[in-house]
């Protein structure tokens, strides 16, 4: 048997992610958010390693870092987030910015995690936006780990961080370790 053909409801994945965040931020390390973040990132990292292994089988080896990153932006993203990265920027010094204007997992986190609904006046909206992007931040450590794991396994050692601009858009910054 192999998981390749198996399909599950996407809500499984979503609720698992949400619960993961809840577990580490609220239950295990309520006082140490950075510790929770590190754990979640580690989980993502392991999954990233494994996915890279799976998704790249039967395909020619990438000849350079850029190819690997493109792979992440296209195929990997498509597999995991059901779309491709909208925009890839680089400074040609080992920093890549992967911009996703509608990051699926941010669109699908439940309302209680992101209380954006019905905030009328400006301040409330702003406040919400802040709280929202903070909350969103918690949900981005896992994908950061995913990306780092995948790239690392493809021979691109790097650090990955995420920036929420305006939900559900967000950008992942990949810094290749030299």
């Amino acid at each position: 048997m192999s998981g390749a053909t198996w399909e599950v409801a996407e809500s499984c994945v979503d609720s698992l992610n949400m619960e993961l965040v809840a577990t580490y931020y609220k239950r295990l390390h309520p006082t140490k958010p950075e510790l929770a973040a590190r754990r979640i990132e580690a989980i993502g990292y392991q999954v990233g390693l494994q996915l890279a292994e799976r998704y790249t089988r039967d395909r020619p080896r990438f000849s350079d870092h850029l190819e690997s990153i493109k792979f992440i932006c296209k195929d990997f993203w498509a597999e995991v987030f059901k779309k491709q990265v909208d925009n890839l920027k680089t400074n040609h010094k080992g920093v890549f910015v992967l911009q996703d204007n509608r990051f699926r997992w941010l669109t699908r986190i439940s309302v209680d995690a992101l209380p954006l609904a019905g905030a009328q006046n400006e301040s409330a909206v702003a406040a919400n936006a802040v709280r929202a992007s903070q909350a969103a931040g918690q949900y981005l450590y896992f994908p950061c780990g995913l990306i780092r794991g995948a790239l690392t396994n493809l021979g691109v050692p790097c650090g990955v961080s995420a920036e929420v601009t305006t939900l559900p858009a967000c950008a992942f910054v990949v810094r290749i370790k030299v």
Partner: protein
Amino acid sequence: MIVCVAVVGHNNNPLYLQSFVDDDNTLKFHYIVHCSLDVIEEKVSNSKRAGVNLNETFLGLLYPTEDYKVFGYMSNTKIKFVLVTTDHDLRDADVRNFFRRLHGAYVDAASNPFHVPGKRITSAAFAERVSNVVKTFGFGAAA
């Protein structure tokens, strides 16, 4: 006949090496596989230099030893797979297919949450699958 199958990590450390001959001295296979890493490196760097065969994962015949033929395959994640066989006329397709299935087995083994990446593969299921792949070697793309 396949006499040895090996999986080598991206640090060129052996992840899995199994011989399929009764001869209890597997030492020589370790030597053969280890040396084959040189050839793999040569081939990879060559194909880099002159973009020939566009980084195919299948590296073909690495070299014959006094008794065997050694074939190689390198995944995108720098995992090397080595096949040692006694046969002298092998169908290229068979070898490719073999490696594809071996790689598949490895991928699943690596997907075991309890497998620590980069560590030697101790999974029984993997061994099981590999010997299965070895058994059905050459019978088309069986199983």
